[in-house]
């Protein structure tokens, strides 16, 4: 028992250790320092994450997105700080606790602020410097912060590397794609600047927005027209004009699920940066798709850190290739999210792909109507709806991309004959005609599966404002439309559909109801790239699985071979001189923990003998027999069966037939089926079983074909003896064989056993019944309290001890009298005492009893085993316990 508690304790300790290791937070390796930094006319609320280790460390400016504060990027800051960077986060002017107004990344305001932060870093004595006043610094930021990174790098050469994410190139293009106002996003953007608690007393109309930006928005949002002033203002708030001044290596990370700043913005930035190294990474999130699946988040973090480490910290290898992207590959059934697979390409191919596949689409010219005030309108993307919108696209359902009747026309391709790995912007030419000469159209590219279910990649559409259109389609010139850049695998058997629609919820179209004629004028040009999947940890698991299976198979085979070899060597060992002795037991000892069941026993069963193993209940008989059958292992000592040392399952056991601890049968089978089932398990030839003989011994008559569960105890017992005798084994070991039998059956059993031991076979019978052993056995081994107290021929043992039976009138009085004489006795039924007289004569004893007033009815001399037994073990069997 103690051993078991130890192993349970060890297992529990290991488990607790593992759990603790898994949930224990990593130690914090940086200090957080809050500062108010003055930059020009404003005070910025900043926080520096300063690694505890390192004398001078490189720095990262980490800018937040629009509407956020320095706390929005705390998690990213901590991760970078843990990598050994001093990370400076701040709340941009016009937000949170920082003062000032929102100038939307104006060169004279927000960008200057960031330059002041560089100055501040350079003045610290714990930041690594490239030169006096020039800190070693990278700039990282998403969206609003991303544009800041680009503009800062274009304005200040002290920046060593930048990682702008999901950001714009030219606000004019982002907010007026194709000349159509992106009203829903613009509105959200503007509202985010309407702080609930304006610090500088902003108006309810403009909040914390600077007046020029605010007035521009109010004007264009009303009309939907981008006038020259607005265009000029937007341009000063865009990185596009200073891109060619950027010297810092730039990692552009852009989201595929982004209807605000689509992939084309990053493409424009990449093309604009002509004087610095540029790498692009597309991932499956974005302003619509959020941070994307876990695998994508990990990839983006890895790429960012790799970039910063090489170009800012100057450690790590140079990142190779200029383009990676990822694609939603399916649903993650375990975490209930989506899964993305990363791909890489040596050179960024642009949005046109490395080659274009042309897919013709069929359909005829159609008339489509623009609803008054643009209502109702199709809903394609929901700004900031997060994963919802891209999930709908993946699920193959129509999602939100429901085109309204009368407002759209469809052009469908034949089923694709091979799958297309689309990476980039598909293009298509259309023709349009309008009575007014003007039109606003939305061109969409759908993936249509075999069931006709269509999906629009990330809800991305191409708006287009057309002017100077003819009134009739006949005179219309083809107009090339560049569809939004997507990453999608069009499976074979799917179709491609071009849809041209008139109104969309996210855009501000014409107010007047109008009718257009539209047609598709060319095949769709689909950009494809040959990319290789980036091996992830998930790919490794397949090798792990292969290794595991191989390991298990090898382990299994080796285990079986070793076990067989070991067994076969052991099984063939024969101890000289005992090859013809059915059973030889020497010094057998069996303990269970502290309890000694069998102290030490020795005996031998020779051919032709019927040996009785005699002892009171708990003497250790059954324990010994269990060991003999290989059911339990001896603590000490040696058992030889025909000279072979005994071990559990050793083949020589096949020469023993056994009944140990009562019968054991399958209750749902008949007696006959049980015997056959048992013999089948031995694997020996059926004719060797001698079923007729066994059935005769069982003597069950018709009951042999009844189910064993309906048997009485005695019937089971007889069946068990018959089972033990199947195949007429050379040694028969029977544990209490007469248990539950009636007297005639006991007598029959006696004859059977005596007959069995002729022709060289041997029998070992255990019993606690003296008469049985005396009448059945040739030899006897008397056990008591786990030791053999006597062994030999029955006659010899019996001859040792003459006893006398007294039938008396008063047993109690007789016992007292005998006690006075100091003789050994035992009660034997009603009024009988078996007495070992020892030195006393019978006459003396009778006289003493009569003198004491005990009536003596009968005095009989006895020379039986029972007396011998008593003589050997004493009257008391107490204390021998249950063995």
């Amino acid at each position, binding site marked *: 028992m103690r051993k078991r508690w130890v192993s349970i304790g060890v297992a529990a300790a290991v488990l607790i250790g593992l759990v603790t290791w898994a949930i224990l937070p990593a130690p914090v390796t940086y200090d957080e320092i809050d500062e108010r930094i003055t930059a020009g006319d404003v005070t910025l609320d900043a926080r520096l994450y300063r690694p505890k280790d390192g004398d001078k460390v490189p720095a990262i400016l980490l800018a937040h997105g629009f509407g956020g504060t320095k706390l929005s990027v705390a998690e990213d800051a901590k991760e970078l700080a843990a990598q050994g960077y001093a990370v400076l986060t701040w709340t941009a002017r016009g937000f949170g606790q920082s003062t000032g107004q929102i100038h939307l990344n104006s060169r004279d305001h927000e960008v200057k602020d960031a330059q002041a932060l560089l100055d501040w870093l350079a003045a610290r004595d714990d930041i690594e410097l490239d030169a006096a006043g020039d800190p070693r610094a990278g700039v990282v930021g998403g969206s609003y912060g991303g544009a800041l990174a680009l503009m800062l790098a274009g304005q200040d050469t002290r920046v060593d590397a930048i990682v702008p994410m999901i950001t714009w190139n030219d606000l004019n293009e982002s907010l007026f794609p194709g000349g159509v106002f992106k009203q829903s996003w613009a509105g959200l953007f503007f509202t985010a600047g309407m702080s609930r608690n304006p610090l500088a007393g902003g108006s309810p109309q403009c909040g914390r927005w600077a007046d020029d930006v605010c007035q521009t928005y109010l004007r264009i949002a009303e009309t939907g027209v981008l006038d020259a002033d607005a265009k000029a203002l937007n341009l000063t708030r865009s990185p596009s004009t200073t891109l060619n001044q950027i010297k810092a290596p730039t990692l552009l990370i852009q989201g595929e699920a982004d209807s605000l700043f689509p992939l084309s913005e990053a493409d424009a930035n990449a093309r604009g940066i002509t004087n610095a190294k540029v790498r692009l990474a597309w991932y499956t999130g974005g302003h619509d798709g959020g941070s994307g699946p876990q695998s994508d988040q990990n990839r983006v973090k890895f790429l960012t850190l790799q970039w910063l480490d090489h170009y800012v910290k100057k450690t790590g290898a140079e990142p190779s290739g200029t383009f990676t992207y990822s694609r939603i590959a*399916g649903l993650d059934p375990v975490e209930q999210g989506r899964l993305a697979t990363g791909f890489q390409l040596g050179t960024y191919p642009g949005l046109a792909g490395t080659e274009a596949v042309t897919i013709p689409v069929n359909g005829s010219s159609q008339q489509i109507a623009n609803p008054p005030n643009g209502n109702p309108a199709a809903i394609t993307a929901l700004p900031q709806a997060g994963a919802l919108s891209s999930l709908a696209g993946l699920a193959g359902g129509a999602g939100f991309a429901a085109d309204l009747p009368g407002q759209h026309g469809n052009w469908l391709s034949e089923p694709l004959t091979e799958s297309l790995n689309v990476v980039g912007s598909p293009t298509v030419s259309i023709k349009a005609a309008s009575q007014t000469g003007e039109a606003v159209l939305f061109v969409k590219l759908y993936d249509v599966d075999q069931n006709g279910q269509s999906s629009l990649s990330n809800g991305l559409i191409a708006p287009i404002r057309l002017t100077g259109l003819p009134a009739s389609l006949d005179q219309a010139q083809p107009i090339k439309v560049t569809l939004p850049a997507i990453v999608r695998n069009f499976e074979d058997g799917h179709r491609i559909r071009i849809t041209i629609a008139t109104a969309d919820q996210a855009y501000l179209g014409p107010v007047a109801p109008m009718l257009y004629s539209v047609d598709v004028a060319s095949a769709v040009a689909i950009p494809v790239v040959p990319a290789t999947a980036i091996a992830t940890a998930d790919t490794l698991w397949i090798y792990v*699985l292969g290794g595991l299976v191989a390991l298990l198979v090898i382990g299994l085979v080796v285990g079986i071979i070793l*076990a067989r070899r070991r067994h076969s060597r052991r099984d063939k060992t024969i101890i000289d001189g005992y090859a013809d002795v059915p059973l030889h037991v020497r010094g057998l000892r069996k303990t269970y923990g502290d309890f000694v069941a069998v102290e030490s026993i020795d005996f031998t069963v020779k051919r032709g003998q019927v040996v009785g193993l005699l002892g009171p209940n708990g003497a250790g008989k059954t324990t010994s027999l269990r060991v003999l059958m290989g059911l339990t292992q001896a603590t000490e000592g040696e058992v030889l069966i025909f000279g072979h040392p005994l071990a*559990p399952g*050793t083949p020589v056991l096949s*020469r023993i037939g056994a009944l140990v*601890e009562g019968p054991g049968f399958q209750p749902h089978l008949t007696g006959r*089926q049980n015997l056959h089932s*048992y013999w089948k398990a031995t694997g020996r030839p059926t004719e060797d079983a001698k079923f007729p003989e066994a059935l005769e011994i069982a003597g069950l008559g018709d009951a042999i074909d009844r189910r064993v569960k309906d048997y009485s105890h005695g019937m089971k017992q007889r069946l068990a003896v018959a089972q033990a005798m199947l195949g007429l084994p050379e040694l028969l070991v029977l544990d209490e064989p007469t248990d539950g039998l009636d007297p005639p059956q006991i007598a029959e059993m006696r004859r059977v056993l005596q007959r069995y031991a002729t022709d*060289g076979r041997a029998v070992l019978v255990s019993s606690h019944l003296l008469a049985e052993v005396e009448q059945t056995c040739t030899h006897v081994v008397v056990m008591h309290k786990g030791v053999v107290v006597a062994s030999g021929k029955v006659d010899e043992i019996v001859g040792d001890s003459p006893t006398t039976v007294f039938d008396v009138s008063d047993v109690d009085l007789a016992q007292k009298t005998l006690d006075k004489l100091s003789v050994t006795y035992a009660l034997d039924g009603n009024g009988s005492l078996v007495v070992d007289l020892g030195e006393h004569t019978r006459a003396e004893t009778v006289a003493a009893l009569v003198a004491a007033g005990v009536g003596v009815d009968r005095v009989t001399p006895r020379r039986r085993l029972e007396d011998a037994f008593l003589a050997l073990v004493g009257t008391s069997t107490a204390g021998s316990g249950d063995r």
Partner: protein
Amino acid sequence: MSTTVTNGAAAGYRPTATLTFASEFMRQWRRRRTQWALGFMVLLPVIILIAFEIGGEGDDDNGRGTFASIIDVALAGGLNFALFCLFVSSSFLLVVVFALFHGDTVASEASWGSLRYLLAVPVPRGRLLGIKLAVALTYSLMAVAVLVATGLLLGTLRYGWHPLASGISADVPPGEGLLRLLGIAGYFCISLLVVAGIAFLLSVLTDAPLGAVGGAVLLFIVSSILDQITALGEIRNFLPTHFARSYLGLLTSPVQFDGMVKGTISALCYAALFWGLAFWRFTRKDVTS
């Protein structure tokens, strides 16, 4: 009188001929619980079919969970009907069936007392356990196969032979759909190896068949509950039931194998551990029952 060979065995006795797969298969086949378990695998699709016929189209949106999409398309064809039968059984019924076949096999012999007679034959202990495990696995696989086959047959007769509608992705053509259905059934079997492992180990440790079966089911449920607690984070990856739903990867297009690969690794590790412990224990233990 028998002649002996060098290992002293009785004539005709070879350790490798004892308790063959066929004889153990018959031993188990004759048991009522085997017949009931397999019979119920036939009955269940029938019951489900009748329920759908009586119930008609329900538009109750309550209780839509992970499998809502599979329920929605259950009547789309024979493949979907078989899939539905499989998935309603997966969370409990098949767990019990696996636990029954593996947990009962050694413990019931011990409780009848017939185990000691098999060992006295002697059937080598490793062999006894190996054959019992192989037969238990065979019956468990048979149960799943019978369930799928019946579901497929009934569903096809009633709803026709149509593409496999997944509800979360595009439809899969029937031929490939059948492969995916078999793949899902196969993955169920693999993930249930954990139950098989626990039940088999318990079967060796105890003489009470019910204890072994119940214990395995209980542990499975506890693991499933713990897996619901997302606060456990990374630890959940080590729960034997964490990857139980990875088969959904076979319903997406393209097929997602990552979850199933991890699930297979997890299941094989656990099964190997439990089976290894069972063999280690059984080849050393004192059989006293």
